[in-house]
């Protein structure tokens, strides 16, 4: 499959790979997908008291598009308020990376991951 240059760039130089302290009250974790489906994304965000995302990390098991989608997402959410981060749509990711139709589900997974991480940190903070 021919990938766009942006997918290849994110795949070869993934941004923000890693892990944040899951037990911290300021960290939200979104783990979506399943090994059986061929992709699992773990996206983590750390927020400050104003609800702004200060740091984001990911690890992804999946194809090049899944890795690129999650890598791009970590770049986008940094510095964003939770309210804005959860507005990110899969179509924006798919468009930015020029994903082919069969890979759209990778961007859907990334959208699910950020929504899930935002929900997690909000629940922790009881807001």
């Amino acid at each position, binding site marked *: *499959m021919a*990938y766009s240059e942006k997918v290849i760039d994110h*795949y070869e130089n*993934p941004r923000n*790979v890693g*892990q944040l302290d899951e037990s911290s009250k300021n960290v939200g974790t979104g*783990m*979506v*997908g*399943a*090994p*059986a*489906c*061929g*992709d*699992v*994304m*773990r996206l983590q965000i750390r927020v400050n008291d104003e609800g702004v995302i200060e740091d984001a990390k990911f*690890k*992804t*098991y*999946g*194809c*090049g598009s*899944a*890795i690129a989608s999650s890598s791009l997402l970590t770049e986008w959410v940094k510095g964003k308020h939770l309210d804005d981060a959860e507005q990110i749509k899969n179509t924006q990711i798919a468009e930015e990376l020029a994903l082919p139709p*069969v890979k759209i*589900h990778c961007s*859907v*997974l990334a959208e*699910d991951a950020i929504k899930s991480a935002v929900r997690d940190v909000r629940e922790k903070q009881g807001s």
Partner: protein
Amino acid sequence: MSLPIYLDYASTTPVDPVVAEKMMEFMTPAGHFGNPASRSHMFGWHAEAAVEDARQDVATLIGADSREIVWTSGATEANNLAIKGCAHFNQRKGKHIITSRIEHKAVLDTCRQLEREGFDVTYLDPDSSGLIQPEMVAEAIREDTTIVSIMHVNNELGTLNDIGAIGKLCRQHKIIFHVDAAQSAGKTPINVEEMFVDMMSFSAHKIYGPKGIGALFVRRKPRVRIEAQMHGGGHERGMRSGTLPTHQIVGMGQAFKIGFETLEAETARITALRARLWDGVVDMEEVHLNGSDNQHVPGIVNISFAFVEGESLMMALRNLAVSSGSACTSASLEPSYVLRALGLNDEMAHSSIRFSIGRYTTEEDIDAAIAQVRVAVEKLRLLSPLWDMFKAGIDLNTVQWSAH
């Protein structure tokens, strides 16, 4: 060593230069371009003689009589002709067919079509090493079974079925036995007499011949009768009409001839390369060989690198041409039905890579492949949340996943 390194010989092979050169003699005005069916002049006679020589070369590789070889466009057509042709011809005797779940799509889809026409098909599950055991076939035989179709070598795993034992069983029950030998011709010895095979499908492009040509062996004694699927001028004793593509046939004949002559030496050489490849990766953690470790052809090595997804692994292996059982490499987004039929969990199927070694593979190629695989797997595992969890001692089967 030239890059990228080709390790996908089970998918197709380059045409041997000797084969290509011979093919060139049967196309241009200066060559023998005649129609082998033209009985009235030299052009036709020359072409016919070349076609018959090639027929003999194919027959020799499998211990058959040249009159038992029918040219087709490839193994897909040969499988269609064998199974449909035989099922239709014998439908008054019975409408039950036995095959396996890990056959090539050309067999499976043909059987599906026959099911739509009212035939009953039993799909045998392989054992966990990917083999179809003769007992499995014995248990599935019914009064109305007319055909058993089992592949010789599986294209994804390289597993080698005991065709002789299954053939004997079929002969005892007077059931026609068809074998898809697309992956075995020239890779392992074949003798249709000793193996009690009634019909056998071949492809030229898997054995250093051209694409677009194949053959079906149809036994004469005891005679196997099939209904033609392609009607026309009555070529190939009425079993397959259409003007014979002389250059393709000559190419296939030459390829089978070389395959026959080099079988022993190549088997030894490729066995050594296989061992070299496996030895080069086996010390990594969580690396699994799929298929049988003692009943296989040497050229196909299917390995799962756990916690790494196959397509992203192939993306990292840009200088290697290999294939994967991962869903993401298939149009259907389903992981390999062959690996799943082994009872392998989906994750392991997604993590599999098939390396297939052939005539032009060198030790340097294998060493370079090993080096690339090691770097890529390590890199992707550092990116993999599943690897983290595995390292933390979490059993992935106990995790509640949000399947999508």
